[in-house]
Each structure stands twice: as C-alpha cells, then as structure tokens.
C-alpha cells in the first residue's frame, strides 16, 4: 500500500505509535468508567489483581489467552495476504464440532494423549473446511470475503444448533449440547501439572493447549517469513497485480491462506471443549473469534505481537470478570467496550497520531512531503 505519509523510524512505526493508539483506547475506556461514576484507578487495580493476583487467576488469564492466540493468529495470517477474515467465530464454532465428534467417539476407550492429537487435527480440519467456501468464492469468483465470512458466521450458528439438537443431544436433555465428555478426552490442566510437583494452584482451566498455541504462533512466524508460500502471501497482500505479474496465483494464495486461517480459528475450540467445559454446547465460542480481530490489529499481525495482545485480552477477560463481581456497575460488557476501542484506535484510526509523530521524529520529511 502506498503510504501518503512521510516515513518514520521503525521503532516509532512498530513500537511507539501502536502503543500510543492502544493507550488512548484505554484512556477513553477510563473515561467511560468515570462517566458511570466509578473510579478508573480503582477499577484498574481490581482488574490487575483479578488477572494476576494468584496462580489460579494467572491460569484463568492464560486460559482465555490461549483461545485468543488461536483466533488472533487466524486473523493475522489472513491480513498478511490482504484478506480480512471476520469468520473466525463461525470457524471456531464448527471446529468444535470436529473436536466433539473425535472426543465422543474415543473418550471412553483411550487415554487423552490419543484423543487430543486427533481432536486437534479434526478442529483444524473442520475450521478450515468452514473457511473453504468463502475462500473459494473469493479466489474463483471474486465474492467479497468480508461479506461471505460474516454470512458464514450466521450460517454456522444455525448449522450448529441444528446439528447439536438433531445428532449430539442426549435423550432427555433440554438445550442443544452433547453429552458430558469423559476423562479419556480431558487435556490436563496446567494446575494438575503443578499439583504433580506439590504446588496447590486451584482449578483454573488453563491447560496444555496453551503450549500448542505458542507452537502455532512460532509456526505462523516461520510460515510468513521463512517459507516460499509466506513470501507469496505477503507479496499478494501488498500488491495483488505485482504478485500476479510475478507468476503468483492469487486464487491459490487466497484459498490456502484462508484454509490456514480457518484451521487456526478452529483450534480455539480444543482449548474450550477439551480443556474446560468438556462437552460441546450452545455458543461456546462466546465472541473469542471476534476478539481475534482486536488481538491481530493490536499485535500488528506479528505472531509475537499476537501472543502479547492475547495475553492482554486474556487478562482483561479474567480481570474484567473479577471486576464485575467487585464493582457491579462495571459489568463484563466493559471488556467489549475496550475491545471496540482497541479495534478503533489500533485499526481504523491507526494513523491518527502519525502527523504528530512525523513532526516529532522526522520534521524534514514532513516539510519535504508538504
């Protein structure tokens, strides 16, 4: 993309400016807290204590962060190829179906370390499959991927209610959900690992999937910056016509990128279904797919940034839950507000302060550009 703005030192462009944007977002969130008559500083103190105050709280933070790393990576990978995948929510939801099918088939017969790898593969496969149709339509027929992935979120919601009601619901159950899974599918909690060493840490649902998420982040980095396909993705993302001139097939890049993206989103369901709720239930994704958008924007689509942003959002989710207990006026909807402000300032208004920084760091360029 040709930037209409003067160039800035890299540390300002990739460090100072994004941080400023996010801080402004949080500052406005603070004003919202002030507006409903509570103390923002008090809220921040409770939030930090809620997120990091004990090993149990930290493990809750890590649990949420694990989900957000997957959905954040999903959005980030697509961004590199110039694609905006809003469908992470639906892809994660359908990915959960893959997990559930594997787990329901195996959980009574084999130990978890047999079930988990198969479930992980199924999650990625189902998530990718759900991304395939929008990807194919974009690649082959030019249908706008933003619109089709939004549509597929809604279609996923209907499809999953139907499937759970019709095929997974045990006899006599009320809501759409599967039967409770058994221990042959439980991915060990991080707390259990600590228990093994004699450290008591409570019952937080953070589990070994966290390390799968970190591995995924590493592999995404490897893919984007160390493989031929990653190079093709980035070329296509920056300039589709140049990529086509260089012999890169836009259709192939679009479809493969979206399959990877959908697969990553699908993996999110492993964390929730096998790590925490131990069944598949209505709307278990609970917005994690959308948090991925904020995480990817905040992390500037770099896997390291995504992991850090996911940790921050994990802390917000966990700390926000504690905060809503301590200060009922600040309900959990506050997290959604912060998420929105981060998307607004780190995404849509990312160049808001650029002229100011140009003045500050390269005044000559500003004059030359004017």
């Amino acid at each position, binding site marked *: 993309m040709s930037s209409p703005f003067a160039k800035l030192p890299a540390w300002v462009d990739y460090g100072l400016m994004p941080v400023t944007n996010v801080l402004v977002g949080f500052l406005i969130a603070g004003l919202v807290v002030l507006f409903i008559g509570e103390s923002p500083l008090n809220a921040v103190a409770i939030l930090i204590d809620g997120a990091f105050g004990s090993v149990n709280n930290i493990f809750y933070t890590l649990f949420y962060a694990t989900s957000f790393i997957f959905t954040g990576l999903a959005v980030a990978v697509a961004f590199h190829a110039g694609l905006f995948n809003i469908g992470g929510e639906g892809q994660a939801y359908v990915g959960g179906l893959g997990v559930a099918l594997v787990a329901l088939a195996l959980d009574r017969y084999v130990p978890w370390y047999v079930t988990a790898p198969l479930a992980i593969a199924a999650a990625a496969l189902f998530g990718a499959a759900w991304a395939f*149709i929008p990807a194919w*339509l974009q690649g082959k027929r030019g*249908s706008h991927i933003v619109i089709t992935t*939004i549509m597929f979120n809604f279609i996923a919601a209907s499809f999953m209610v139907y499937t759970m009601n019709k095929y997974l619901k045990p006899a006599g159950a009320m809501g759409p959900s599967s039967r409770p899974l058994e221990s042959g599918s439980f991915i060990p909690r991080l707390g259990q690992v600590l228990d093994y060493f004699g450290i008591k840490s409570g019952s937080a649902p953070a589990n070994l999937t966290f390390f799968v998420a970190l591995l995924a982040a590493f592999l995404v980095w490897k893919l984007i910056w160390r493989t031929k396909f990653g190079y093709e993705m980035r070329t296509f993302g920056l300039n589709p016509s140049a990529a086509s001139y260089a012999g890169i097939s836009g259709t192939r890049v679009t479809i493969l990128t979206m399959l990877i993206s959908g697969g990553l989103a699908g993996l999110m369901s492993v964390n929730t279904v096998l790590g925490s709720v131990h069944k598949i239930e209505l709307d278990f994704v609970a917005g994690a797919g959308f948090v991925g*958008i904020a995480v990817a924007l905040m992390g500037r689509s770099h896997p390291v940034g995504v992991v850090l942003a996911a940790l921050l959002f994990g802390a917000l989710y966990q700390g926000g839950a504690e905060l809503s207990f301590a200060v009922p006026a600040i309900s959990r909807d506050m997290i959604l*507000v912060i998420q*929105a402000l981060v998307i*607004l300032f780190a*995404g849509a208004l990312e160049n808001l302060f650029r002229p100011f920084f140009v003045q500050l760091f390269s005044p000559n360029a500003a004059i030359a550009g004017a």
Partner: protein
Amino acid sequence: MDTTILFSVLDSTIRLTVPILLCCLGGLYSERSGVFDIGIEGKMLFSAFAAGVIAAATGSPWLGLGAAMLTGITFSLLHGYASITQRGNQIVSGVAINFLAAGLTALLGKAWYSQGGKTPQLEPSARFQPINLPGAEAVKDVPLLGRVYEGLISGHNVLVYMALFAVPLTWWIIYRTRFGLRLRAVGENPAAVDTAGISVTRLRYSGVIICGIFAGIAGTYLAIAQSANFAPNMSAGRGFIALAALIFAKWNPIGALGACLLFGFLEAVAIPLQGAKIPGLNWDVPVQLITASPYILTVILLAGFIGKAIPPKAGGVAYVKER
C-alpha cells in the same frame, strides 16, 4: 394454509421487514457513495438505546426518535472520520462501532437502570402507537380486499409508513436528483467527481450521515415502536441481514424493498413453524435452515450463480486527492 395464519404471517412479515428495510436504505446511501458500512448493526443498536432512554425520560416518542437520529449521525460521523478523513479501513471501523454499541449500551443500561441492561418499560403514550387508517373499520367485512386493507395496510405505527415511503423517495433521490447522480458517481469514480470540482469528502459524508439517520429510525422502531423498551443486543444481527438484502437488491431501492420483504417473510414463517412437521412425512421442519436462508441466499448470489451483484466500484477505497 388457513387464511388467519396467512394473514398473521404476512402481518408479521411487514413488522419484521421495517427495521431491515430502514437499515438497508441507509446502507444504500453510504455504499453508493463508496463507503462500506458494516457498523450499521451497531448504529441501530445505539439508536435503539438512545430512543429507549430519552422516551423513558421525557415520555415523548418523537424526542426519542430525535435522540436516536442524532445518535445514528454521531456514530456515522465517527465512521466517516475514520474512513473518509483518516482513510482508515472501513471494515475495521465498522467492526469497532458494532462492538462499541454492543458493549456500551449494555454497560450503561445496567449501570443506570439495574434491570439487566433494559431501559424502563414505557407507557403507551411514550411509544409509537398503531394508526388506524381512515375507513379501515368500515371495509373490514369486504372479502379479501377489505381484509387486506384492514389487517395488513392499516394498523401500523407511523415509522412503518415512513419506511415504506422512504423507498420511492430514495429511488427518486438516487436516480432523479443532482445529488443522487453525484452520489452514484462518487461511489463509482471519485476522481472524475473531483475533477468536476465537486467535493468527494462532502458527498461521502452526506451519504454516511443519511445512513446514520436511517439507522436511527430503525433503532427507534425496535425500541419504542415494536417493543416497549430497549434490551441489550436487541438488534440481533438485523443490520447484517440488511447488508445482505442490499447486496441482494443490487444496491437499488426498489429491489431493497423486495429483498427485505423476502427476508422479513422468512423470519416471519420461521416462528410458527418451530417444532412443526412436514405434512405427510414425519420430519421436523428444519427451522434453522429457514433462519439461515437469507445468509445462504446472499452467498449464492455473491457467488454469481443467480445473476451478478456488482457493488459500487470505488466502495471500500479511501479517496486520495493527490499522489
């Protein structure tokens, strides 16, 4: 089908069409000017909240409507500032507005009224009431036509008639006025409009602001005409259905009415079919399939299998005056 059921389905079709139609027409102005608006869902939700709060505080539905329209315009200006002035990503800005609306309305609602995010229940006088058109009672017993007039055409609130009137009005504005011509041009080729000495920025802001006004009316309809208060997330994806309808209508106001009526009808029939069996066979009617059908139809249309939906050419691209 029994005619009573038929009439009740058609009647709820109209009720369910109105919010989609208003958003769809609003989105038409915005997208025709070259600004995509994913955030229309959020604007409608914010407006519904504003309408609920102000109507509860003042007891006047008209003040509620005014507040809702102002709210719609405010968030349109935010979207416009991000996507026109700052040349930010229009999709990202829309997504942000949707989350901001979902979060902030629930947060403020819970903090102010402590009713789980709902605004206080309104007295009938604070809501838009059904209007009985002249002669409706008299012709009630005339077969078919009388019943259509009394049961379907008469007996809606003023916002319903506003929405229906907005369809020909929008057609006239878009295709028969200078403003409409320029609006269409700026969505197709902003450079040409700029060369002609017309401000691209001003035209796009007008499109976006009109979109906010429509979203405001749609929100008002949800909160204080169809219901008697605001409830969190009451827009329930209707803004997205409206975007789907807009694609289905190929960005044409008359088509918008047709698409919205179709989607409204699909929503209306899904309700009585809940748990029903397909006659003759012992199968449940797949209600989820009906619920999902607007989205499925839109995807099929986007794929170009039933006609081709071509969006305004410059849609989603910020205009840079000089390179």
